[in-house]
């Protein structure tokens, strides 16, 4: 009478191995996929960045007229306004790059603030921007708290951008 009890038992065992196999296929598939995605993103890392820092550009000997997106902090005391034309210096504390821009600036634009300027390089190594975007940091707080932090000297200007 054992022949009557074995078939269902064997079926459950087979079902279990099929499930295990499917589990391994899914796990292996996801691992390969993650690896492939990781490698391709790593290979494309230069084109995935939204902007270059002044150090990236100053070291690179850019051709005049080459289009570039520059990101960094507006250097303290560097903003000069002349009508609608603004001159300022973008810095990452390692290198600096002067920028000229004619047009409307975003409200957040100020010295010490993060900016992303898009434009082309001029022969003298400065940049002529056609658009300026403001970047804000990851800190959120009411004005009173910000002032208290500044008073107590625990304020980091610009912070990590």
């Amino acid at each position, binding site marked *: 009478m054992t022949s009557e009890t074995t078939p269902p038992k064997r079926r459950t065992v087979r079902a279990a191995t099929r*499930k295990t196999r499917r589990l391994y296929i899914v796990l292996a598939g*996801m691992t390969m996929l993650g690896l492939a995605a990781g490698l391709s993103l790593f290979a494309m890392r230069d084109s995935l960045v*939204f902007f270059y820092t002044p150090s990236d550009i100053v070291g690179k000997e850019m051709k005049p007229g080459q289009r570039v997106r520059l990101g960094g902090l507006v250097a303290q005391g560097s903003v000069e306004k002349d009508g609608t034309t603004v001159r300022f210096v973008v810095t990452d504390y390692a290198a600096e790059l002067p920028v000229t821009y004619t047009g409307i600036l975003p409200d957040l634009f100020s010295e010490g603030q993060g900016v992303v300027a898009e434009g082309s390089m001029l022969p003298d190594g400065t940049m002529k921007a056609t*658009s300026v*975007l403001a970047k804000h940091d990851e800190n959120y707080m009411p004005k009173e708290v910000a002032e208290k932090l500044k008073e107590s000297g625990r304020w980091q200007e610009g912070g990590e951008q």
Partner: protein
Amino acid sequence: MMHRFANPTRFMRVANVILPWTAGLTLLFLAAGLYQALFASPADYQQGETVRIMYIHVPAAYMAMMIYASMAVASATSLIWKHPLADMIARASAPIGAVFTFLCLLSGSLWGQPMWGTWWVWDARLTSVLILFFLYLGYIALLNAFDDPARGAKPAAILALVGAVNLPIIKFSVDWWNTLHQPASLAKMDGPAIDPSMLWPLIFMAVGFTLFYISVGILRLRGEIAGARIRNLRLGMTHG
């Protein structure tokens, strides 16, 4: 334990008891969260009143990713263990996730214009979230591309799993590459960079959105289960 609740009928019995509670709590949390976000919380030192967009944008972004993650887990469960309920959970979640992703993109765009000075840029964070939105739409389209809804389940589940690769890319895009989007404020090693007066409304909104997802999810699951039952009855009639 898992098998006990994997039975759709038994699951729905529990879900129907939970539903009035989650629905009520959704209203409570969203009302309290919106009041705090729009009236009681302070303006930001830098962004002023515009910061209030954050209370919609950040929870919507969290929901977009959380719902996709649960869809991917449900899809894996459906592929490996063939639980019919897992498949239904993934199906029921997709449109809710798509709407939250759209809300995230829309509120982000409305926030970007006054703060950054642009509605949209193709930086890594914004682009990867747009891809997430298309993944949701692709999943829904694939599910409905077959005359027999049961046949769409497997390819859609595979798409949901493949798309899950995008989730860590969204999360870490602001750390791996230069982006216009600022780095993470909440998930930081040294604690959130948000003042408690602004963090609480944000948490209330996130809890409210999550409860909303659970409530609408239960309603949609009810529909999915009823739909499957009707199809089975029809099949029974034509064959029997």
